[in-house]
C-alpha cells in the first residue's frame, strides 16, 4: 500500500525535475524566439483552423515564434513522412509539431520517432487534470511517458435534428432499430477514418461482455471470440444503412454536411460540443440535439507531439505550452469558437481564469452526459480495420 512517506518522497522526486526545468524553460523560450514551427494538424473543420490561426498570432506576438499550420487530412500521412525522413537521415524534418493520438501515437512511440519526454516539463502541464482525466496520461491505454502533451478532451457523441428525431437511440441496439425504421438515413465513415474506426470500436465495446480484453495489447484468440457478436450486430445494421451499407462516406465532416442537407438523420463527432458549435455557426438548425449512449461512449484525449527530427523543437515546446495555458484552453472550450473540452483541472486555476471556462447550455449541447469509456488498446485498431474491410469493403 502507498503510505504517507512514500507519497511524500514521490512528490519530492516529481517536484525536483520541475524546479530544474523552470530554469531551463526560459532557455527554451530564448531558443524558440525567431523559430518557425510547422504544425501538422488535421484541417477538416473551419473553426479549428481559425483557432489555430489565432494561436499562431498569439505565439508570434508573445514569444516570437512563427506558427505555420500545415493542413492535413489524415495524421497517418505525417507518421509516414516523419518515418521516411528519419530513415533517409533528414535531420531538419518537415514536421515540428503534430496533432496526434491513439494508433498514430503508438506507432510513433514504438518506432522511436518522437522527441522527449518533454510534456511534464512544460510549465502549464502543472494544471492538467491527470487524475480526473486519466486519458491525459494513457493514450488508448498506451502510456504517454511525456512524449506528447495533452491538448483537448474528446467523447464520442451523436447528433441530429430534434424536429425529426423524437427519441434519440441511446445504444447501438437502439441505433440499429432506428436505422431499420429509417432506411438509408444512417451511416458511419469508412475506416481507417478515425471517426469510422471509433464507431466500430463503440459497437465492439457495446457488443462485448468481458471488456477487460481491451485494456491490454490485443490477444487475437480472445478477440476472435469477442468479434462474433460484434460482427453479427454490424451484419444486422448494414442493410438499413445509407446505400445499403455498400458505400460509406469518407469522413465525419461529409456526414455532417449530409445531416445538414437532410440526406442523413444522425451524425457523429468526437467533440461533444461540435453540434452546438455548428448550430451557432448556422450550419445546423436550432432544433439540433446531441446525445451519448446511456451506458457510456468512448472517450479519449488528443495531444500534440514533437518528432525526433523536428527542426524547431524549442519553438514546438513553446507552442505546446501555450496551447495548455488557461487562456488558450478557455478559448478552445468556448462553444462559439471551437467547443473542445479542456484538459485542465479548472479548480487548480485562479478564479478569473476558471470563470472563462463556463459554457452555458446552448442549442445542440449534450443534455445528459454519459460516462466516458476507455479506448481499446491501440493494437486493436489494425485488426478492427482489417476485419471490417474483409466483411464490408468489397461492395
Amino acid at each position: 500500500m502507498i503510505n504517507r512517506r512514500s507519497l511524500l518522497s514521490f512528490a519530492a522526486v516529481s517536484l525536483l525535475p520541475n524546479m530544474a526545468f523552470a530554469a531551463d524553460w526560459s532557455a527554451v523560450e530564448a531558443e524558440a524566439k525567431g523559430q518557425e514551427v510547422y504544425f501538422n494538424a488535421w484541417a477538416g473543420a473551419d473553426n479549428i483552423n481559425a483557432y489555430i490561426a489565432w494561436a499562431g498570432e498569439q505565439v508570434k506576438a508573445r514569444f516570437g515564434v512563427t506558427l505555420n499550420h500545415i493542413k492535413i487530412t489524415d495524421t497517418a500521412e505525417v507518421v509516414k513522412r516523419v518515418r521516411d525522413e528519419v530513415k533517409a537521415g533528414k535531420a531538419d524534418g518537415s514536421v515540428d509539431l503534430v496533432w496526434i493520438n491513439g494508433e498514430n501515437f503508438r506507432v510513433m512511440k514504438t518506432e522511436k520517432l518522437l522527441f522527449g519526454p518533454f510534456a511534464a516539463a512544460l510549465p502549464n502541464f502543472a494544471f492538467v487534470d491527470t487524475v480526473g482525466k486519466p486519458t491525459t496520461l494513457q493514450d488508448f491505454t498506451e502510456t504517454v511517458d511525456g512524449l506528447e502533451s495533452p491538448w483537448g478532451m474528446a467523447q464520442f457523441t451523436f447528433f441530429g435534428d430534434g424536429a425529426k428525431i423524437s427519441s434519440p437511440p441511446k445504444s447501438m441496439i437502439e441505433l440499429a432499430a432506428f436505422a431499420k425504421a429509417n432506411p438509408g438515413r444512417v451511416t458511419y465513415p469508412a475506416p481507417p477514418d478515425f471517426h469510422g474506426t471509433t464507431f466500430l470500436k463503440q459497437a465492439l465495446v457495446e457488443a462485448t461482455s468481458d471488456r477487460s480484453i481491451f485494456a491490454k495489447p490485443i490477444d487475437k484468440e480472445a478477440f476472435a471470440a469477442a468479434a462474433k457478436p460484434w460482427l453479427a450486430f454490424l451484419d444486422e445494421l448494414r442493410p438499413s444503412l445509407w446505400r445499403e451499407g455498400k458505400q460509406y462516406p469518407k469522413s465525419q465532416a461529409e456526414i455532417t454536411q449530409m445531416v445538414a442537407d437532410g440526406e442523413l438523420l444522425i451524425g457523429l463527432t468526437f467533440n461533444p460540443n461540435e453540434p452546438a458549435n455548428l448550430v451557432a455557426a448556422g450550419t445546423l438548425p436550432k432544433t439540433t440535439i446531441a446525445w451519448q449512449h446511456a451506458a457510456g461512449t468512448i472517450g479519449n484525449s488528443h495531444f500534440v507531439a514533437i518528432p525526433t527530427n523536428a527542426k524547431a523543437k524549442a519553438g514546438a515546446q513553446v507552442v505546446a505550452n501555450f496551447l495548455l495555458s488557461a487562456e488558450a484552453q478557455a478559448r478552445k472550450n468556448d462553444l462559439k469558437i471551437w467547443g473542445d473540452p479542456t484538459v485542465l483541472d479548472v479548480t487548480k486555476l485562479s478564479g478569473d481564469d476558471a470563470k472563462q471556462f463556463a459554457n452555458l447550455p446552448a442549442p445542440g449541447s449534450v443534455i445528459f452526459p454519459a460516462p466516458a469509456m476507455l479506448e481499446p488498446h491501440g493494437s486493436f485498431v489494425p485488426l478492427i480495420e482489417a476485419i471490417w474491410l474483409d466483411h464490408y469493403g468489397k461492395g
Partner: protein
Amino acid sequence: MVGPLRQGVTGKVWRRAFGSPIIILFVLPLVVSLLFALGAAFDLSAWQLLWAHPQLWPALGLSIFTGLMSVLLSASLAIIIVAGLYLSGWWPRLSFPIGAMLAMPHVALAIGLSFLIMPSGFLARSVALFSGWTTPPNWITNHDPYGLSLIAALVLKETPFLMWILISILNRQDVRDNFNGQRAVGLSLGHTMTSIWQRLYLPQIVPKLVWPLFVVFAYAATVVDMALVIGPTQPPTLATLVWADINDSQVLNNARGAAGAWLLTVAIAIVALGVWGLANVIFSRREWLTVGPAPRALIKVFFFARLKFSSLISVYLIITVLLVILSFAALWPFPNLWPEILSISAWSRVGLDPSAFFTSGVLAVSTTVTAFALVIAWMETQPQMRDKYVTLLSATALGVPAIVLALGQYRAFLQLGLTGSTFGLFLAHLLPVTAYMFIVLVGPYRSFDSRWQASASGLLASFPRFFWAIKLPLLKAPLLAASAIGFAVSFGQYVPAQLISAGRYSTLPMEAVTLTSGTNRPLTAAFTLLLMVPPLLVFMAAAHFGKSRWSKL
C-alpha cells in the same frame, strides 16, 4: 535546316550548352524517378500483402472498367462530333470552345459535377420542384459503386481532348488535301459522308489515335484526385487504394501500395495491348467496313453532332455557374433552387489566406516559362533525329501512371533532401509540363519551313534577329497554345504536389480535394473556381494573341 548555331567548333559547345538543360531538369529527374519506382517493385513481402488485400481484385476491376469505359465513350463521342462537324460552318470556330474546356483542371470538373449530381445537388433540387421532395432522394450518384459518375466526369473531360487531337490531325495540310480528294471520289460514287467517314477517313485516322487513346486510358484507369472526389469508395478504384496505402502510417502498407501501383501499371499495359491486338484483327478484316450500304443508325448518330457538342459545352457552363452561386451560398437548404443567404465569407476567407493560389500561380508560370525555354533550346540546337528520345521519354512520363512516377520521385527526392523544398516542388511540376509541351511543340516546330531562314540569311539577318523577328512570330500560335497547356497541366497537378510538398506548401488542387470531404461547400466552390479560372484566362489570352494562326491550328 542547318542553323548558324550548328556550325564550327563553337557551335558544338553551344549545342551542348543549350541541349543540356532539358537533360538535367527533365530527362535526369524522370529517369531517376522511374528507377526508384522500379526499385520499389522488388519487395516480395509487399506483393504477398497485396495478394491478401480483400479489396484488390474488385478494385482492379473497377480501375480497368472505368478506364475502358471512359476511353470508349469519349473516343466515340469525339469521333461522332468531329465527323458531324467536319467542314461545317462550326468547323473553323471549334478550337476556342474546345480549348476552353481543355483548360479546366480534371479535379475541378469532378467537384463541379458532383455538386450537380449528388442527392442534395442541383439536379435533385430541380426534380424536387416537380416531385415535392423535402429531403434529398436516396440517389446513388456521386461515389456510386460502379464508378459511373467517375466515368461521366472522365468522359466530359477527355472528349474535348480527343476532339482537339482529331482536329489537329484533320487540319494538317497533307491530310486535308488527301481527304478532299477522297471525298470527291466518294461523293461521285454515290456515297454519303457517313459512308466516307466509315470507309475512308476513320481507317486512316484511328491508327494515328493509338497513343492519345492509350494516354486517356492510362489516365482514366489511374486517376487519384477525381476518383477521391467522385469515384467509388468501398471498394474504391485500385489507384485510390494504392494512394491510401502510400500515405498510410504503417510501413508495410506503404510497400503494399508500391506493389499495387506496379500491378495497376502492368494490368493497364496488358489490357491496352489486348485491346490494340483485338482492334488490329477487326480492322484488318476490312470487308465489313467496305461492303454493303452504310448502316442507317450511323447517319442519325452523326446528325446530332451539333446538339451533342452544345450539350457538352452546356455541362461545363452549368457547372461553372453552379460553382459561382455555391461560392456565395452561406445557407442553401434542400430543396431550394436558390440560396437562402448569400455571403462573400468564402471569398474573404480565400482573400485572407491566398497562399495556395500564389503557390499554384508561381509554380505554373515558372514551370511553363522554364519548359518553354528547355524545349526551344533543344529544338534549336539538337538535330531532329534526336527528338525521338525526348519524345519517347515525354510519352513515357504521360503514359506511366502518375502514382508510379510520383512514388519514384518521392523516394528519389527524399534521398536527395528535396522533399518539402521549393526546388523539389518546382521539379515535380516541371516534369509533366515539359512532357506535354515537348509533345505538343515537336510537330509544329520541326515542320517550320526552312526557306524562311534561307531568305533571312540572304538578307544578312543574324540568327538571333531571324529567331525573334521571323521564327517566333510565325510559330506564335502553337507556342502560345503549348504554353497555355503547360500552364493548365501545372495548375492541375495533385499527386506529385501532395507527395513532394511534405505539407510545406499547399497548392490549389490539394486545397480543393481536402475541402471536398469537409463541411464548407462555399469555400470548396471558391477554391474550385480559383483552380479553373487562371488556366481559362491564360488559354483565352493565348487564343487572342495567337489569333492570326489560331484558326488553322
